[in-house]
C-alpha cells in the first residue's frame, strides 16, 4: 500500500466510523449512466446554473440595488454628470472600473440565456422521447416549475441594472399587474412601493433575485437530480437494453471525468462568448426615465414569445359599471401562458389517460413511433415560434424592409392556422418514417449498386441491415386503441359518456401506426 492510499484509507475510515457512509457510497458509485448526446442537455442546465451562482455572487460585491438618485461621476464620459439610480451607476462601475467586471456581467447574462435555452432543449428531448412517463411524472412537473422560475428570475435579473431598456420592461410588467381585475392596481402599488416606477421595486426584486428564487432553484434542482439518481436514467432502445436494466458507464471514473470535464467546457464556451460577443450594453441605453424609449425595444429571447402574443392581441377592452377589463393584456400575458404551462405540467397524466397505459417505462420512444405526441409537440413549438416571430416584428420589418402590419397580420392568422397544420404534417411524416423503417427491415438498405438481370431489367441491390439496427427498428411496442363501451356488461348506459367518447376518440388517434413487420412477413420475404 502506498502512503497516499494509506492516508486516504485513514480519512475514509474516520468518516465511515462516524456516519457509516461506505454502504451507500459504494452503492452510489456503482450507478450506471447510459450514454447519449441528448442526455447532456440537462447537464448544460445544471452547469449554467452553477455558473450563474458564481458570476452572480461576484456581481453582488459591487452592485448597489437602490433607486436613490446619484450624479454619475465615473469614467464613462458620455454619461458623466447625469442623474441616474445608484443601481444603474453601480452597473456602469462594474462594467468600466472593476477589472473583469464587464466579463462577469457578460458571463452572467450569457449563462442566463443559455440556461433557459438548455432548459427548453432538455424539455423537448424529454417530451419527444417520452421520458416523462411513469414513474417520472414528478420530475416532469419539477422541470416545468424550474422553467417557470427561470422566466421570473430572468426578468428580475435583466431588470436590475435599471437602464432604459429594462425600465421599459418593468413598465410593461406593471401594466400587466394593473390589468388584473379588482386587485391589480393595489398589487402594483404595493410591489413598486407607489405609482410606477415607485421607490422599492429594484431593491425588492434584488432580494428575490439573489436569495429567494435561487434558494427555490437549489431546492428543486436538488430534488430533480436526486430523483434521476434514485429512479435511474432512462435509456434508448438497443440490444441488451430492457425495461428491467440500465446499460452504461459507471460513475467512477468515466462518467465523473466526462461530466466534470463537460462543466468546464460549458463554462469555457460561455466565457468565450462573453469575451467576444457583447450583450446588453447598458451604457448605450442610458438611465431609465419613463418619458423616453429606444426603438426596437426587445426583451431577452425567452420572453419574446410572450411579448409577441401581447403584440398580436386584438384591441379589446370591456368598459362596464365604472370598471375596465383589459382583455388585450389579460389574454396574451396571463391567460394563454397559464393554459400553456398548466397543460404542459399535466401532459403525462393526460397521455396516460388517453392510452390507458399505467406501466413503468424506462426505455425511450423514438419520436416517430408515437406520431400523436410528436405532432402535438411540434404543434406547440410552432405556436411559440409564431409568437416569437411576432415578438421581433419590428426588428424583422426594419432588417428585411417588410411591413410591420403585414407581419402582425401573418402572426394573428398564423397563430391559429399554422399549429394545426404542423400537427397534421408531423403526424404524416412520422407515419412515413415508420413506413421507411418497415421497408428497411423487409428489403434492407440501398447500396447504390445496379444489377442488370439476364432479361434486361435493372434492379438495385439491397443489403440487409445490421442486427443491432434491425432490433432498434423493431423493438417498440404498438398497442391497440382503448375499447370503452358506452354501456356496461348488463346493457346499462355508463355515466360520463361524453368523457368516454373523448377518451375513445383520442385513444384511436393515438394508436394510429404503420404495422410492425411480423415473423410471417420476414419468412415470406426470405423465400423470394
Amino acid at each position, binding site marked *: 500500500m502506498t502512503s497516499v492510499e494509506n492516508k486516504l484509507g485513514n480519512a475514509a475510515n474516520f468518516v465511515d466510523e462516524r456516519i457509516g457512509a461506505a454502504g451507500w457510497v459504494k452503492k452510489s458509485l*456503482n450507478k*450506471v449512466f447510459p*450514454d447519449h448526446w441528448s442526455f447532456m442537455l440537462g447537464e448544460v442546465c445544471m452547469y449554467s446554473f452553477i455558473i450563474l451562482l458564481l458570476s452572480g455572487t461576484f456581481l453582488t460585491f459591487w452592485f448597489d440595488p437602490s433607486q436613490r438618485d446619484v450624479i454619475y461621476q465615473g469614467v464613462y464620459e458620455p454619461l458623466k454628470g447625469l*442623474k441616474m439610480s445608484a443601481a444603474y451607476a453601480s452597473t456602469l462601475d462594474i462594467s468600466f472600473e472593476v477589472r*473583469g467586471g*464587464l*466579463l462577469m456581467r*457578460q458571463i452572467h447574462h450569457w449563462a442566463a440565456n443559455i440556461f433557459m435555452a438548455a432548459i427548453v432543449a432538455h424539455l423537448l428531448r424529454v417530451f419527444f422521447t417520452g421520458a416523462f412517463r411513469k*414513474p417520472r411524472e414528478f420530475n416532469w412537473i419539477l422541470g416545468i416549475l424550474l422553467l417557470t422560475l427561470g422566466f421570473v428570475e430572468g426578468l428580475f435579473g435583466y431588470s436590475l441594472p435599471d437602464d432604459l431598456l429594462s425600465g421599459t420592461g418593468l*413598465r*410593461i410588467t*406593471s*401594466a400587466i399587474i*394593473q390589468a388584473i381585475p*379588482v386587485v391589480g*392596481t*393595489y398589487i402594483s*402599488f404595493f*410591489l*413598486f412601493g*407607489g*405609482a*410606477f*416606477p*415607485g421607490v422599492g421595486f429594484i431593491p425588492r426584486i434584488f432580494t428575490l433575485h439573489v436569495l429567494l428564487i435561487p434558494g427555490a432553484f437549489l431546492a428543486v434542482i436538488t430534488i430533480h437530480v436526486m430523483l434521476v439518481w434514485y*429512479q435511474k436514467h432512462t435509456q434508448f432502445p438497443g440490444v*441488451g437494453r430492457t425495461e428491467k436494466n*440500465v*446499460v*452504461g458507464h459507471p460513475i467512477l471514473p*468515466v462518467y465523473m*471525468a*466526462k461530466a*466534470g*470535464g*463537460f462543466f*468546464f*467546457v460549458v463554462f*469555457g464556451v460561455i*466565457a*468565450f462568448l462573453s*469575451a467576444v460577443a457583447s450583450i446588453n450594453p447598458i451604457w448605450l441605453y442610458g438611465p431609465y426615465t*419613463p418619458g*423616453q*424609449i*429606444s*426603438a426596437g*425595444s426587445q426583451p431577452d429571447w425567452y420572453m419574446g414569445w410572450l*411579448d409577441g402574443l401581447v*403584440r398580436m392581441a386584438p*384591441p*379589446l377592452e370591456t368598459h362596464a359599471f365604472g370598471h375596465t*377589463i383589459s382583455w*388585450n393584456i389579460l389574454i396574451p400575458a396571463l391567460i394563454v401562458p397559464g393554459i400553456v404551462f398548466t397543460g404542459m405540467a399535466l401532459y403525462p397524466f393526460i397521455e396516460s389517460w388517453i392510452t390507458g397505459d399505467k406501466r413503468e417505462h424506462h426505455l425511450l420512444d423514438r419520436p416517430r413511433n408515437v406520431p400523436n405526441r410528436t405532432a402535438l409537440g411540434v404543434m406547440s413549438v410552432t405556436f411559440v415560434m409564431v409568437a416569437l416571430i411576432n415578438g421581433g*416584428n419590428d426588428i424583422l420589418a426594419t432588417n428585411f424592409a417588410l411591413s410591420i402590419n403585414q407581419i*402582425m397580420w401573418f402572426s394573428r392568422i398564423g397563430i391559429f392556422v399554422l399549429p394545426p397544420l404542423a400537427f397534421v404534417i408531423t403526424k404524416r411524416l412520422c407515419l412515413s418514417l415508420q413506413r421507411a423503417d418497415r421497408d428497411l427491415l423487409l428489403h434492407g438498405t440501398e447500396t447504390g449498386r445496379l444489377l442488370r438481370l439476364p432479361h434486361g431489367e435493372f434492379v438495385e441491390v439491397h443489403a440487409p441491415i445490421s442486427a443491432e439496427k434491425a*432490433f432498434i427498428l423493431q*423493438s417498440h411496442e404498438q398497442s391497440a386503441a382503448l375499447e370503452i363501451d358506452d354501456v356496461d356488461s348488463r346493457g346499462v348506459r355508463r355515466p360520463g359518456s361524453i368523457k368516454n367518447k373523448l377518451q375513445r376518440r383520442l385513444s384511436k388517434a393515438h394508436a394510429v401506426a404503420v404495422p410492425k413487420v411480423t*415473423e410471417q412477413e*420476414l419468412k415470406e420475404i426470405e423465400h423470394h
Partner: protein
Amino acid sequence: MSNELIPSDNSAIPVHAPRATDINPKAEKRAEQQVAILFALSGIGSLLLIYSYIYVANDVFIFIPIMGDQNAQQLGIGIGMAMSLFFLGIAAIHWAKTLMSDKEVVNHRHEFRSSDSDREEFVKTVKEGVAGVELGRRKLIKRSLGAALALFALPPVLLLRDLGPLPKKQLETTNWKAGTRLVTDPGNRPILASDLEVGAVVQVLPAVEHPDERALSDIAKDPVLLIRLRPEDFQLTPQKFAMTHDGIIAFSKICSHMGCAVALYEQQTKHLLCPCHQSTFDVTRGAKVIFGPAARPLPQLDITVDAQGYLVARAAFNEPVGPSFWERNSQ
C-alpha cells in the same frame, strides 16, 4: 434473411470493439501526450488572464478584424478565462474517452412500488395515528382549530400591507392643471406658439417650481407630445378641435396600452407608433387607434396660449392617462 435479423435474445450486449489506445501502445502514448498538451493550454489561459489583469491598462484598445476596436484588458481576461476553463474540460474528456475504460456495465432496476406488506403497514400506521387524534369525537377542538387557522392566514397578508401606499387617485390624475405652462423636455423652456412650425414635434412636461426634482413617477404620467399640423389636416369632432390651438395638438405620450413612451412619429402619414407593441395612432383623427393592441386613443390635452403667447393647458386631462386598470371609469 433469417430470424436472427431481429435478435430475440436481447440480453447480449454487442461485443466491445477495442479502441486504438487499447491495442496500440504508440496510440496510447500519443493520447497521453495530447491530454498533457490540453492541460498545458489551460495553464497558458490562466497565465494570460493574470497577465491581462495586472499588466494591461484598462484604456488600451486593440483592433481585431471583424470585431473592431476592443478593450485589451477585458478581452485578455475573457480569452484567458475561456482558455483555462475550456481546455481543462476538453483534457478531462479526452482522457476519459481515450484512456479510461469504455466497457459498459449493466445495472438492474427495481420496481418503485413498495411491497404489499409495507403498504398495508403504512396504511395501518397512518390510520392508527389519525385515530389517536380523535378529531371526530372532539368537536370543540375541531371547530376552534379551524377558526384559529383561518385567522392565522390573515397576518402574513396583512404584514405586507406597508409595502406601498394605497393608489387613491394617483392613476387618475396628472400634474396638468388649467393654466399650467408647457415646458420643453429636455430644456425646461416655455414654448411660444409662434415658434412651432408646421410639422414640428416637441416633447413637453408641465412647468413646475423645481424641474430638477421631478419624481420619476411624475415623468411616468406627465409627458405630452406637441405636434403642429395645418388646421385643415385635422378630422376631429368640433369638441376635440376646440382643444387644439392654431393647428397645435397635444397628446399624452404614455401609451394607452401598457404605458410605454409613444415616441415614433411619422411625418408623412402623421401616425404615432409605440415601439413596445406597435400600437399606431392617427394624429389627424385625435390619436385614434388604427393598428395594434391598444384599445383607446391617446388622451388629448386641451391647450391654449397665455397673455405672453406661451402655450398653456386650458384644463387638466379629462381622462386618466396610461394603461388601463380595474378602477378606471371609461364611460
